[in-house]
């Protein structure tokens, strides 16, 4: 069964080809397009499940030793040999399950959501192409194929963000996404070169087996470069700027690509390269710091946005920060766990936002909503479940994953109490702004126009069923990873342990313990660890509850306060509301200076120097000709004089 892994990405590829070429050419009926696209994903999901079960039947050590399924050679040049091959191990199969599963539900939802759009066929073709690329990314057995998937999802992101290309804003947003991604990919590519130059292979098995032969500096550089790629794809500081703009795309796209799958590629990549990262504590520290900083930074921007999707976008950036925080402190399985639960609840939140948009006739500004919880109950309740999950309320999936991250940030040898503090603060902010979103959108007085109010309705079942399924997963999805301290058995961690457990601890020496011995790694698993974990758990729950209460106070009870606060702290408010003017900063510094350099080189150098030089040569020739032609006087006697003089000189010369 496991050898059939190559079918998992193949089905969406066939779906793309069919919908993209045949269906568009022959203008096939929408139902066929929808069926083809969804069944492609359904088959992918089915096969992922089957292969998962085959894998589970193996012994834990055997699960990471499954031979790669190689299809054929790709680039063979000298000693470089790359193949099209797929790897089945616990990490990749979990990613495949998450990707294919969540994609499957989102495809079904899209059938309803995009029903009236003229680009229906094109949409599903692109969506299938995206899943194909994403599955290639997570199932690849070598860096180069992963890079194909990596850039491929970037391409699909461009195509889908700019889906409504007739308008300027989506077209520009798509372009921005692609270009910013490419900046990150530059780092990734450099890392690939370094890996090949030092280890002679690009296959994961070969690279990780030979990794111990690398010296510390090389490994650090490689891992930092890989992380640069990750910041681009997974929207961390400083390359996150494309994600909020990406909300111009259709909402299921935002759900799939910018919440559940594509943006998690960076986390997956770091998890996959855990052996390399464990050898480079400096890189891990960088990852953790950037992750934590992004988490709180993005959360701060999410506090004030009015557009539902923007809030969710910043929330995504923030949650991705958590995942990077997790892998940065060495808690790889915690990062992947949060990746999975985040896919559930964030995917659900976006789909819910789409449902709200559907109900509110295309409105996304939450100031124009309110009081719709009764009229769109399924949307509301599923949204509520997801919000509870993301806030980290015990019992829901988000609680288990987020808590484990925070604990590891505090406790792990690579962790630090400051990281925990930042993470906890961000968690509080998350709870606050998510419940702000919930309250303002669904509760209170309905602030919509009369026209819109009349049309508020629940979405059709084809849209609400995926919502319900994802909500269920948001609820129960966490129970595969109940920490020991609560009496459970962390199946998730156990399953992934063979992938992550094998890193050499020798080189791993927490960077922070050199800096702050007093406060470093709060316990490193010594006695009393359990009670500390419970304490921290309690603290984070308390913070979440405080956040929710503040949101309750400000947006349900005393709704006039937020505006007064905004006026009191006007400058702070403006700065945060305008996303700290980072976009403008980038535009002014990078974009404009490059443009000016290009224009300068064109006009001043190419035209001014080189062409002037060439034309100068031509002018010199013309001038010389002008001078020399004066010898041609047209007077025969002059010529004769010349001849005679010449003859005399020659004769004299000969006589001597």
């Amino acid at each position: 069964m496991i050898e059939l892994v190559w079918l998992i990405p193949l089905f969406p590829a066939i779906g793309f080809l069919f919908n993209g070429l045949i269906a568009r050419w022959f203008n096939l009926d929408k139902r066929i397009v929808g069926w083809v696209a969804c069944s492609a994903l359904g088959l992918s999901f089915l096969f992922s499940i089957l292969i998962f079960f085959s894998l589970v039947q193996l012994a834990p050590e055997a699960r990471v030793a499954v031979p790669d399924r190689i299809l054929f050679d790709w680039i063979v040049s000298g000693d470089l040999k790359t193949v099209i091959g797929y790897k089945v191990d616990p990490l990749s199969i979990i990613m495949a399950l998450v990707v294919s599963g969540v994609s499957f539900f989102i495809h079904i939802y899209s059938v309803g959501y995009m029903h009236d759009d003229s680009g229906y066929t094109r949409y599903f073709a692109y969506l299938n192409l995206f899943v194909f690329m994403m599955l290639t990314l997570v199932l690849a057995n070598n860096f180069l194929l992963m890079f194909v998937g990596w850039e491929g999802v970037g391409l699909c992101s461009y195509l889908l963000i700019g889906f409504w290309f007739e308008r300027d804003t989506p077209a520009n947003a798509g372009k921005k996404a692609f270009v910013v991604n490419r900046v990150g990919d530059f780092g990734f590519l450099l890392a690939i070169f370094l890996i090949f130059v030092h280890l002679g292979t690009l296959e994961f098995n070969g690279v990780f087996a030979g990794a111990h032969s690398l010296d510390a500096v090389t490994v650090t550089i490689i891992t930092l470069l890989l992380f640069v790629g990750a910041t681009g794809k997974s929207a961390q500081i400083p390359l996150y700027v494309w994600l909020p703009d990406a909300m111009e795309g259709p909402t299921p796209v935002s759900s799939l690509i910018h919440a559940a799958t594509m943006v998690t590629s960076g986390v997956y990549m770091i998890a996959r390269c855990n052996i390399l990262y464990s050898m480079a504590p400096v890189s891990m520290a960088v990852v953790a710091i950037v992750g934590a900083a992004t988490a709180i930074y993005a959360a701060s921007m999410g506090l004030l946005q009015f557009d539902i999707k923007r809030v969710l976008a910043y929330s995504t950036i923030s949650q991705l920060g958590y995942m990077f925080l997790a892998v940065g402190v060495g808690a790889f399985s915690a990062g992947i766990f949060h990746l999975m639960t985040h896919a559930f609840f964030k995917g659900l939140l976006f789909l819910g936002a789409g449902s709200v948009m559907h109900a509110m006739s295309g409105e996304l500004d939450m100031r124009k909503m309110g009081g719709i919880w009764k009229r769109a109950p399924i949307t509301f309740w599923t949204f509520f479940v997801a919000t509870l999950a993301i806030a980290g309320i015990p019992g829901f999936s988000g609680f288990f994953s987020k808590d484990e991250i925070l604990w590891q940030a505090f406790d792990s040898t690579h962790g630090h109490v400051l990281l925990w503090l930042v993470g906890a603060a961000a968690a509080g902010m998350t709870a606050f702004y998510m419940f702000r979103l919930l309250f303002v959108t669904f509760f209170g007085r309905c602030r919509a126009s009369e026209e819109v109010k009349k049309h508020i309705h629940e979405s059709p079942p084809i849209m609400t069923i995926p919502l319900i399924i994802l909500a269920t997963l948001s609820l129960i999805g966490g129970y595969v990873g109940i920490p020991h301290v609560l009496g459970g058995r962390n199946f998730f961690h156990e399953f992934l342990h063979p992938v992550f457990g094998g890193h050499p601890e020798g080189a791993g020496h927490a960077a922070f313990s050199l800096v702050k011995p007093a406060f470093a790694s709060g316990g490193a698993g010594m006695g009393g660890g359990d009670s500390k974990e419970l304490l921290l758990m309690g603290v984070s729950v308390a913070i979440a509850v405080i956040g929710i209460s503040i949101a309750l106070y400000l947006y349900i009870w005393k709704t006039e306060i937020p505006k007064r606060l905004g006026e009191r702290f006007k400058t702070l408010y403006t700065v945060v509301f305008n996303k700290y003017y980072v976009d403008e900063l980038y535009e002014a510094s990078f974009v404009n200076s490059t443009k000016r350099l290009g224009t300068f080189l064109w006009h001043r150098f190419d035209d001014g120097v080189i062409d002037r030089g060439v034309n100068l040569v031509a002018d010199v020739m013309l001038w010389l000709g002008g001078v020399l032609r004066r010898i041609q006087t047209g007077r025969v006697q002059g010529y004769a004089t010349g001849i005679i003089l010449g003859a005399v000189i020659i004769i004299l010369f000969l006589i001597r």
Partner: protein
Amino acid sequence: MLSSVPPIYFLIVSAVIFAIGAVGVLIRRNAIVIFMCIEMMFSAVNLTLITASHHLNSLDGVLMVFFVMTVAAAEAAVGLAIFVLLFRGRGTIKVDEINLLKW
């Protein structure tokens, strides 16, 4: 009788006549005068040839003189014909006014 005059005098005379003829070719403007100077140059050459032939006791020089005179006559005929046509076309026979090849 002829041997009493050393050949060098004949050669000098012929050189002088040649030079005068050459300078005349270069300086005079009237095409017919230029022609006459060219004839002068021919004469000077003939003199040189005869002198040399007598001094070397050979007939080669004298034969060459015959050729030179024949060619000179033919050339004079053709040249004068050209000048007539030139006068008809340009209206002048002054050489420095016939400068169509000037840049």
